[in-house]
């Protein structure tokens, strides 16, 4: 669909821009993706306010995570999370078997080293959404084989 591709292209341009910036600023090998993560955070925060408008109050944390996996994900990536796992102690693993930003790449090992750039935005998106629902967390991503991606959410308890 036309409106989907706009988001995808804008996203890849944001990554390119951030890469360009970090190239100028420092000679570090590690790319600076914190700006991309922050853009995701702001977007997630705002989307969540809209999305939960018609919803009844969430029962608990797991209920909130289910919401993120189903409705929040559908709103942004037009599909649901394929697998949600938790240890019931504040660690959640969300697995997407065909993550949208990675589906256009080779399925083999070819671009595996660049994959982390394309998941930073989404980490921020999840973190921002949860932050607005009063859940402070650290979100990291892991890509092992190409179109599938795992997001690890560590909830910070005070």
């Amino acid at each position, binding site marked *: 669909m036309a409106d989907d591709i706009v988001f995808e292209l804008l996203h890849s341009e944001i990554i390119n821009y951030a890469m360009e910036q970090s190239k100028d600023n420092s000679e570090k090998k590690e790319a600076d993706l914190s700006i991309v993560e922050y853009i995701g955070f702001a977007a997630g925060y705002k989307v969540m*306010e809209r999305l*939960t408008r018609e919803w*009844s*109050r969430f029962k608990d944390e797991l209920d909130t995570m289910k919401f993120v996996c189903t409705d929040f994900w559908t709103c942004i990536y037009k599909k649901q999370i394929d697998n949600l796992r938790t240890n019931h102690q504040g660690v959640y693993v969300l697995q997407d078997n065909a993550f949208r930003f990675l589906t256009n790449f080779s399925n083999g090992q070819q671009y595996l080293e660049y994959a982390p750039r394309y998941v930073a935005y989404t980490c921020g998106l999840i973190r921002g959404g949860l932050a607005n*629902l009063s859940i402070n967390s650290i979100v990291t991503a892991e890509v092992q084989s190409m179109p599938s991606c795992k997001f690890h959410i560590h909830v910070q308890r005070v």
Partner: protein
Amino acid sequence: MAVCVAVIGKDNSPLYIGGIGNDTGTDNELSRQWLVHTALDALEERLATTNTNNAAAGTNTARADLRDLYLGLLYSTDTHKIYGYVTNTRIKLVLVTSSTSPSGSNIRDAEVRTALRRLHALYADAICNPFHLPGDQITSPKFDKQVKSLMLNNV
């Protein structure tokens, strides 16, 4: 209908307090703040009972109602009635009506509910301003104007 509406943030700090009428004096501003803040305790209490009821997970018939975002009449004084609404994102919306004015004394619950739902929609729009940072006061004149017209339309 409404004499005052307020948007209260996650940490009980006021993000926006707006009233109507020709009075913009400091005294009125203070009395508004006072009215809104008297309701906050009642609001917290209402939320706490919601949580315990859910934890008990009993087949309580009132449970569905308690999970509603609209919390109904929180507090009433001789002159004012205070209604509350809490979003999923812990933003508290408070609406104060005057029970001395003819239009405010016989206001229906459904009207307040719709007004607060519309306020929530306006808030969600205001928050989408990219220059607005989470937790900041809402200073947008557009939001102010929309809220004022919301209050007046319901007279």
